[in-house]
């Protein structure tokens, strides 16, 4: 029983980075932008998230406010990189797939460069500690699994209904979906396609930055070059898996982090099984899901990945 509780609570806490990033990516894709640079934004977020508390406390005790400032810095940088990507793919209308690779290399490289200069070697930060919910956390099993996490976990799961509400019940959400489905129609009724795409990339970038900061501040409590290790790409795949719906994306994030915890179980319980194959599992799962989920090819935003040009008749 103890193992199950550990595994489930670990799966929930490690699903948060995927969840935040893929909700951000979902907003991008709903607006018609395929942002493959998510990985790079997460890297920069992870670096900035740990840099702020580290610069103040040098790895020792740091007032909680600086962790919060770290999160904010990561979000700001994420939004900035999102806007930069918007400049390339919305204003200059560059092909999004290859531009995303560029952003990924830029982000990962910049985080590595800055990290070596400002921090140097492996340095840990106290990070964000768990904040058990009063009363609820005392429920047997469920309390330990669901309500003994850190504050960002609750926030991330609150974001699921919130993003659903924003996307499907607010005027801005409608505009985002219109721009991603039929930009010409949206344009004809006076929606500024460029502006909405810039906005959604800023929001999506901020969430990816936050996801990165979660990795460095809550999960690893340090930064390393391989801290994101493909989570940004899995987050993009999760959007396909979740059919561009927040709730389905949440289930996807949980499923994939469960697959990731498999590796932790094997290593910590000394099961005789080559751990490399356990590490592979989530990546294999992505390919299998993409290959056999035929629905996801019909449900995507129709203008996904297509640059919009007012001047060209289609």
């Amino acid at each position, binding site marked *: 029983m103890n193992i199950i509780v550990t595994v489930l609570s670990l799966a929930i806490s490690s699903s948060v980075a995927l969840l935040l990033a893929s909700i951000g990516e979902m907003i991008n894709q709903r607006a018609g932008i395929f942002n*493959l640079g998510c990985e*790079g934004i997460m890297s920069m977020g992870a670096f900035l998230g740990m840099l702020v508390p580290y610069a103040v406390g040098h790895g020792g005790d740091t007032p909680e406010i600086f962790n919060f400032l770290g999160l904010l810095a990561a979000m700001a940088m994420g939004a900035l990189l999102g806007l930069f990507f918007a400049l*390339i793919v919305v204003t*200059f*209308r*560059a*092909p999004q*797939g*290859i*531009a*995303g*690779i*560029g*952003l*990924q*290399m*830029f*982000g*990962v*490289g*910049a985080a*590595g*460069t*800055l990290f*070596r*200069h*400002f921090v140097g070697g492996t340095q840990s930060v106290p990070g964000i500690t768990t904040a058990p919910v009063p009363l609820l956390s005392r429920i047997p099993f469920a309390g330990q699994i669901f309500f003994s996490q850190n504050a960002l976990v609750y926030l991330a799961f609150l974001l699921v209904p919130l993003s659903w509400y924003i996307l499907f019940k607010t005027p801005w959400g409608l505009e985002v979906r219109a721009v991603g489905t039929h930009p010409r129609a949206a344009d004809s009724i006076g929606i500024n396609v460029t502006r909405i795409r810039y906005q959604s990339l800023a929001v999506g970038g901020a969430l990816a930055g936050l996801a990165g900061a979660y990795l460095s501040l809550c999960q690893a409590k340090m930064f390393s*070059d391989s801290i994101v*290790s*493909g989570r940004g*790409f*899995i987050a*993009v*795949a999760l959007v*396909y898996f979740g059919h561009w719906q927040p709730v389905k994306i949440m289930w996807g994030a949980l499923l994939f982090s469960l697959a990731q915890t498999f590796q932790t179980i094997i290593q910590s319980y000394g099961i005789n099984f*080559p751990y*490399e*194959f356990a*590490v*592979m599992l989530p*990546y*294999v799962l*992505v*390919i299998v899901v*993409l*290959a*056999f989920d*035929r629905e996801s*090819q019909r449900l995507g935003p129709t203008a996904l990945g297509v640059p919009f040009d007012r*001047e060209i008749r289609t």
Partner: protein
Amino acid sequence: MTNQFKFLYKTCIVLLAVLATMAMGAVILLAIGAPVLKTYAVIVFDPLKNIGLISEVLIRTIPLTIIALGIAVAYRSGIINIGAEGQMAMGILATTAVALALPDLPKPLLLPLVLIAGIAGGALWGAIPGLLKAKLQVSELLSTVMLNYIAEQFYTFCLRKPFLDPAEMTTGSGTPQSMRLTKNIWLTRFVSGTRLHTGIFIAIGFAIVIYLLLWKTPFGYKMRAAGSCERAARYGGINVAKYLVIAMVLSGGFAGLAGAVEICGVHHRAIQGITGGYGFSAIVVALFGGLHPAGIIPAAFFFGLLLVGGNMTQNAVGVPANMVQVLQGVIILVIVATQMILSNTYLMERIWRKTHKEASS
């Protein structure tokens, strides 16, 4: 619009693009307080100081050229292969496996055999995303990235278990690497005192082959047609899906060959970190070289220069080697944006009218 104006306009755009690249790199350099111009100078000129360094640049040019050729073939056929890293790793594994299994074969037989094994390993790994895209419409961007991570893990597993050097087992240091492979697969080092090996001729040879294949045969024409306009190609009776798979197999094969050449020419054994980002750098090389063999060779040399220069900045100006990755990312972004600006004839016309009016008034 005069031709002179067109030329001037295009030159200006390209110059602006170069400036934009340097400016974006400068943002990061300024953030770490490094001298901007001096860093660029170190990266570009220091590796050309002596013959030893130039040979190191050429050694990096070899895999970059080979992989970039494959990526260009795929890109021309309408599929973006970002899985070269994994395909190269699989090529290395196949090469190592054959060399370990048949160490006693004579060199004229074994060397081609291991190179073919490398090609086969990469081609198989490349075939997976190709088939997934052709049959199940899975985005190759996601599948190739995932296959990179899978190959990376499989690579470590192979070095740790089946291919592990018996000497490592007895001394017990546990470094995951294979034993030193038989001399019968070594490529000759033809400049004494350097590691420069005959793989460079393999790279140049394949560049010519790719040029002939893509531009001088009906087969290549069909591939390029499938890539440049899928619907028109299909209307013209070209089986687009088939050429997609072939392109990915070729692309993976090239990455695998690059891995095999690295083993036979440089490392002589499978160790960790051989791929070392070549798969991603080669994407930049392919784009920078205009997806054409004649452009790819100089582009590969330039990025080989960057890779060697990047390792020198730490000592010279205190800039970490990761800076090269930043520059590569920026270069991709600038290239794709610049291409769109250059192909925008409307913009060119608007600027022509503006300047023309000013000139006349």
